[in-house]
């Protein structure tokens, strides 16, 4: 690399100091290079920094980043290393108005998941967003987040994000792109843009919709394709089938006594899942004095957390759900044919009818439109509309074309310019479309995205996108509520938002995202004096008032779907599902999500061909073997409709027989350093006509084996584990009937020691004593707590090899226990944090007093005193301690330094770590209370897991205060301590699970207990 000597133009401080804006105009500066934009300085920067970043041809990309960082650090010490956006953004109300160093601020914004807004509050430390919390004021978030929401912080700081505008892999500038674009547009304008196509993900942004309209003015013939790999076409088409128009059903679980889910996994994959879980779980926190709860029936083709938390779960192949649904529908009074009877149908129908208007039937997006129509018809027949379900218009702005139509056009050579923004069709499009080949027929391909992905490498232009936490935008939630998306940080790599990109097609000026957004909302809200107040209010609250959709009245119209049942599938069936961790693959480069133990399989860093124990036996007697390096399983070849992939077998209890589930989102080739080559690519099997399931799968043994990283015991090899779990009363549960008969049913068979048996003197807590109660009735096993904890506590990602060796670092884990036969087990989720034992076994054995009891009852960790004997972990009956066997934390990547919570120690090699009830949050609240000369209020401190939990299953508080929520929960007869017979006296306790099975439906559990 030949480098010119740095020009002799001196970079002086006067240059910096002299130019703080023109007279009479306040000028905010982002960084020194802007502040000191003397020609010499710019020249200096130009030579030294980003323009030539390509000469640092480092595949790791760190040096590029360093040089960029260096630009803002060039005159170190005068500026923070991060930039606040230049426009005014408003802090959330519960934080003070001014930024106090060391005190984080919270800003309300939203991230769109699959296009649908989830309202969030982002914690910002001196301009660095570090943590996502749910926005309690947002109707679809209600203060909770899901795993994806939490991981956006990691997505922002992902060192593999693209940093430059690229043309054919060479660095270019935005200016160069605009110039090239102008040339092309001039040509395209003549035919009205007939050769121009835009391909994006789902669009719910009103501003983007308005921009589309504006674009129509410029290029009337240009067309827009809105496509998601995990589409909701079935929901849309189902509504069209039933009502003749597209409406979005909005469910009201709080009013639903009996719910039938036809493969609707509302816990993890529904646009409103956070709200639905809140409402659903709210009806399951049984008060044993007045026991009542809802009842959930789930019929599903692949085990999901929804099914796991159901009172009755029926494992049917996805193709068989329709027949079942038709039979139930006929039972509840819908005129319909094609029902396939089942033992369940009669009692289920009776139950639904008994509930009447307080029943609810919902269908999942994986089921064909007819099933949705049937669900709508059932709701109408039961009279639930208006009580448990209402209809509104859909939040999304539909595209002009489908992806299939676009590919046809591309193949015909009609398309001259294709702009792909925020989508990755080369990776995720159905295999039969042949998107990649069609793409090559398009003369000009422009990709706009966060990273150089599979699609970007096949496009000439790649434009780095601004992350949602870096850009101004807006988005609708499923219910219609609009959230203004405000940036927490200026774009790290100079990326532009989709709005700014689109503006380049519309006008020659280069409006900023802020102006585009504000301009749009000025039109909507009125450009009057009150606008500023409304705008501020909307930014501040995180919702634009009055944007909820009004209810629509629709009526089911009988059609062909009532008479003709869908064709069943023959042979072995394959089911495609999005992954509970990496979703459709977009999060594949985020280690938090790759390493998230999936709710039921507890697999990390892999997808697998999931099948029932019986099917595994029938297809080849597959076994999974546990070793110290991971679980060894066999690799099979899946052949389906002319495509084939190799996949490891994983045996999953509760999976329907003769079916195989594969999760999408793996096997990426251009995800980044983390996500490349993880798992196998299930999209390679997926076809456009059967996106969610289809028959005719062939499974062939290859003789190869694969090593899997699974964090919990495996059913088939460790049957003893399940026996032991039952013996040990780890999970206590009872049915609602049993609770009604005897509120103390949970104590049967338990061995709670008498208090005062210990030889050790009791600790005294004059002020506060922290405790936690976790309601296993409410927990749905969604994992949000795990990611939230990972983000809050700087928990390291260790990689597949280390997880396989049993070295995962999660401070909270969600244990999954089965009860009953492997074909139809009952599943329980038990989140396990540190128990903060009163008589903690770990404290006694630590030779260096690195884990000690605090005067508020916590088991504190003193990281810098830990010498790493691991004795505490051996002596911990709950195995909640985690050890840094290697230097797991990335100490070098600069962006990760920005990402971490500055209030939590970043642990080094050889140090034991564990949950401390988010002691940093306790300290902050204690200081606040002291400053204000008051007590800490109940609920003022939320641990990270508690805050994220959509089910509000985790409650933290002061057990010294008998009026606190946690004290009241602990007084419940449902409350029990895990392994209490060991006299550890855990401070984290559990509320036993209550299930509400229909006595008319035979269940294995009942037979076992009473038969």
């Amino acid at each position: 690399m030949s480098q010119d000597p740095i020009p002799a133009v001196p970079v002086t401080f006067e240059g910096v100091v002299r130019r703080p804006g023109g007279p009479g105009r306040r000028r905010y500066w982002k960084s020194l290079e802007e502040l000191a934009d003397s020609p010499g300085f710019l020249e200096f920067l130009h030579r030294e920094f980003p323009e030539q970043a390509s000469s640092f041809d480092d595949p790791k990309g760190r040096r590029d980043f360093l040089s960029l960082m260096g630009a803002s650090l060039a005159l170190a010490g005068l500026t923070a290393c991060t930039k606040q956006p230049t426009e005014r953004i408003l802090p959330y109300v519960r934080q003070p108005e001014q930024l106090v160093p060391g005190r984080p601020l919270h800003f309300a914004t939203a991230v769109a998941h699959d296009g649908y807004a989830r309202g969030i509050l982002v914690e910002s430390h001196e301009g660095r967003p570090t943590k996502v919390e749910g926005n309690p004021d947002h109707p679809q978030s209600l203060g909770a987040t899901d795993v994806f929401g939490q991981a956006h912080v990691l997505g922002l700081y992902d060192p593999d994000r693209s940093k430059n505008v690229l043309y054919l892999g060479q660095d270019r500038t935005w200016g160069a792109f605009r110039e090239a674009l102008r040339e092309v547009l001039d040509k395209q304008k003549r035919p009205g843009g007939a050769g121009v196509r835009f391909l994006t993900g789902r669009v719910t942004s009103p501003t983007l919709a308005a921009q589309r309209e504006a674009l129509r003015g410029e290029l009337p013939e240009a067309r827009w394709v809105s496509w998601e790999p995990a589409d909701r076409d079935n929901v849309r088409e189902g509504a069209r089938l039933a009502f003749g128009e597209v409406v979005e059903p909005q469910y009201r679980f709080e009013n639903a006594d009996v719910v039938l889910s036809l493969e609707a996994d509302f816990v993890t994959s529904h646009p409103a899942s956070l709200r639905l879980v809140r409402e659903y779980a709210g009806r399951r926190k049984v008060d044993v004095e007045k026991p009542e709860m809802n009842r959930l029936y789930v019929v599903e083709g692949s085990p999901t957390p929804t099914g796991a938390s159901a009172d009755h779960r029926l494992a049917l192949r996805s193709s068989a759900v329709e027949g079942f649904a038709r039979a139930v529908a006929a039972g509840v009074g819908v005129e319909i044919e094609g029902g396939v009877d089942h033992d369940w149908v009669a009692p289920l129908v009776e139950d639904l009818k008994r509930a009447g208007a307080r029943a609810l039937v919902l269908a999942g997006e994986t089921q064909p439109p007819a099933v949705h129509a049937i669900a709508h018809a059932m709701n109408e027949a039961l009279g639930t509309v208006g009580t448990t379900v209402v209809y509104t218009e859909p939040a999304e702005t539909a595209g002009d074309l489908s992806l299939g139509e676009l590919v046809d056009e591309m193949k015909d050579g009609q398309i001259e310019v294709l702009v792909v923004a925020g989508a990755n069709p080369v990776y995720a499009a159905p295999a039969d479309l042949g998107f990649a080949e069609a793409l090559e027929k398009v003369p000009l391909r422009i990709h706009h995205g966060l990273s150089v992905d599979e699609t970007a490498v096949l496009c000439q232009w790649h434009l780095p996108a601004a992350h949602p936490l870096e850009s101004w935008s807006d988005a609708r939630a499923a219910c219609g509520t609009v959230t203004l998306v405000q940036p927490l940080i200026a774009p790290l790599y100079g990326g532009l938002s989709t709005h700014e990109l689109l503006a380049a097609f519309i006008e020659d000026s280069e409006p900023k995202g802020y102006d585009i957004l504000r301009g749009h909302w000025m039109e909507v809200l009125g450009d009057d004096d009150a606008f500023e107040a409304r705008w501020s209010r909307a930014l501040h609250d995180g919702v634009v008032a009055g944007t909820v959709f009004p209810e629509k009245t629709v009526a089911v119209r009988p059609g062909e779907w009532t008479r003709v049942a869908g064709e069943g599938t023959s042979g072995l069936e394959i089911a495609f599902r999005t992954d509970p961790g990496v979703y459709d693959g977009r999060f594949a480069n985020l280690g938090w999500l790759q390493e998230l133990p999936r709710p039921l399989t507890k697999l990390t860093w892999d997808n697998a061909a999931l099948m029932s124990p019986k099917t595994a036996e029938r297809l080849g007697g597959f076994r999974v073997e546990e070793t110290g390096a991971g679980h060894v399983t066999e690799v099979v070849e899946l052949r389906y409709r002319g495509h084939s992939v190799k996949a490891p077998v994983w045996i999953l209890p509760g999976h329907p027989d003769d079916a195989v589930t594969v999760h999408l989102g793996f096997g990426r080739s251009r995800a980044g350093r983390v996500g490349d080559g993880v798992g196998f690519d299930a999209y390679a099997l997926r076809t456009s006509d059967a996106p969610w399931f289809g028959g005719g799968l062939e499974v062939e043994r290859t003789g190869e084996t694969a090593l899997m990283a699974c964090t919990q015991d495996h059913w088939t090899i460790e049957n003893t584990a399940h026996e032991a779990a039952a013996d040990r009363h780890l999970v206590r549960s009872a049915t609602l009937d049993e609770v009604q008969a005897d509120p103390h049913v949970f104590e049967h068979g338990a061995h709670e020691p008498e208090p005062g048996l210990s030889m050790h003197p009791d600790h005294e807590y004059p002020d506060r004593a922290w405790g936690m109660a976790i309601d296993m009735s409410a927990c749905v096993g969604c994992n949000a707590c795990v990611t939230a904890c990972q983000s809050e506590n700087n928990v390291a990602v260790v990689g597949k090899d280390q997880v396989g060796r049993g070295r995962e670092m999660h401070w909270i884990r969600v244990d999954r226990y089965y009860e009953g036969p492997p074909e139809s087990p009952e599943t329980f989720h038990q989140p396990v944090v540190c128990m903060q034992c009163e008589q903690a076994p770990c404290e006694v054995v630590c030779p260096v007093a690195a884990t000690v009891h605090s005067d508020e009852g916590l088991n504190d960790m003193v990281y810098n005193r830990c010498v790493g004997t691991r004795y505490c972990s051996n002596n911990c009956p709950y195995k909640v301690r985690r050890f840094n066997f290697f230097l797991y934390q990335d100490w070098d990547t600069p962006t990760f330094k920005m990402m971490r919570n500055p209030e939590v120690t970043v642990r080094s090699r050889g140090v034991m770590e564990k949950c401390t009830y988010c002691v940093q949050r306790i300290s902050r609240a204690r200081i606040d209370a002291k400053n204000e000369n008051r007590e800490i209020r109940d609920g003022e401190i939320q641990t990270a897991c508690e805050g994220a939990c959509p089910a509000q299953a985790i409650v933290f508080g002061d057990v010294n205060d008998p009026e606190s929520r946690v004290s009241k929960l602990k007084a419940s007869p449902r409350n029990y301590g895990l392994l209490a017979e060991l006299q550890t006296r855990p401070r984290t306790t559990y509320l036993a699970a209550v299930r509400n099975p229909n006595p008319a439906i035979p269940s294995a559990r009942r037979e076992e207990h009473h038969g």
Partner: protein
Amino acid sequence: MASAPHTEPRIIGPGHTFATVTDKIASLVLQKKTPLGWFVGFAVAFGLLQLLLVSVALLLARGVGIWGLNIPVGWAFAIINFVWWIGIGHAGTLISAILLLLRQQWRTSINRFAEAMTLFAVACAGLFPIIHMGRPWVGAYWLLPYPNTMGIWPNFRSPLIWDVFAVSTYATVSALFWFVGLIPDLATLRDRATNKFVKILYGMGAMGWRGSARHWNNYEMAYLILAGLSTPLVVSVHTVVSFDFAVANLPGWHATIFPPYFVAGAIYAGFAMVLTLAIPLRKFYGLEDFITDKHLENMGKVLLATSLIVVYGYTMEAFMAWYSGSTFERFMIWNRMFGSYGWTYWVLLFCNLLTPQLMWFKRFRTRAGWLFAVAMVVNVGMWLERFVIVVTSLHRDFLPSSWGMYSPTFWDWATFLGTIGLFLTLFFLFIRFLPAISIFEMRTIVPEARLEEERT
């Protein structure tokens, strides 16, 4: 001699005098050409030592993750090896101290190298708790009690702190005991050495020993006091080591029988190791006259007795698991027998329960070959015992959700073999440069000495 009906069982070969004993033992060090076999053995041992250095260097550079440890199996090879080595050491102390106090004259010919064995085994053992932290430098900082401005002391409730004291005391006393015992012999070597450099070196070690009556008096006093100090250590050290487990609440560790059971196991393992070293030693150096069949037979008897105590320990563990009625304890013993590592338990019983029963029969007790084989089996058995206790208990503990498996990595084995290398290297150096059998003590049991006594 064998025909003499009234003589005690023979602990020294016929025809030896003061001079022959001195000549024979001193010549191993001073005159004789180093045998080729020594070089071969030393080379192997030294090679293994290099493996240890590489393993430890890598460990310090990268962390304990290079081993197969995980959560729940937080302790594995390092602790197994620690307990194994320290147990081996016990026989040396027992032979030197307790048998001295009990006036067991047959100890005389084996005590020197048994003590050396103790010292080297303690060196190997001591290495493990230090390196198993992965960052020993912080360990020294926080583990040793010293007045400091932070006002922080170690946690004296932790058995690991007791370990620090127990093992360091043991190492110190063993080293002193061994060295004090060496002084008269170092003087003998000094006097017999012809090379001036060698003379000076041994002379420094002999610390001015001239064999005066006062010297002998002081020596006897010191030796007796050290023997008295060492005696409780034989019991205490392994008791403390067993506390590492017994104090924990883990099923399979939490057992009151651990202290006596561990001490017996230590002596058992130690005698097996003494036999493992003595049998080749007497063969290659032709020391059958000094380490006689009587010695071997006595050690065989000790082996049998201690094995029975150990087996009693196994029985009580199983009995208590059943008798306690605790589901955790019952599961633990079931898992030991039939779980993923069940085979280790059965091999352990073969090694420690069945094999030593051969020692009931005199023909096995008196045949060096058989004894050596039994001793090797016992060495393996005692290592497996610790594996069963440490790993099998940990990998299936209270919550099934946390259960895991442990597989040793290459570096686990390398570190273990490396310490065997360290041990053997030290031992080879010892038999080459120091009298492996106590010369002056052997002189007290030759017939000449006895005749003197009888005459008076």
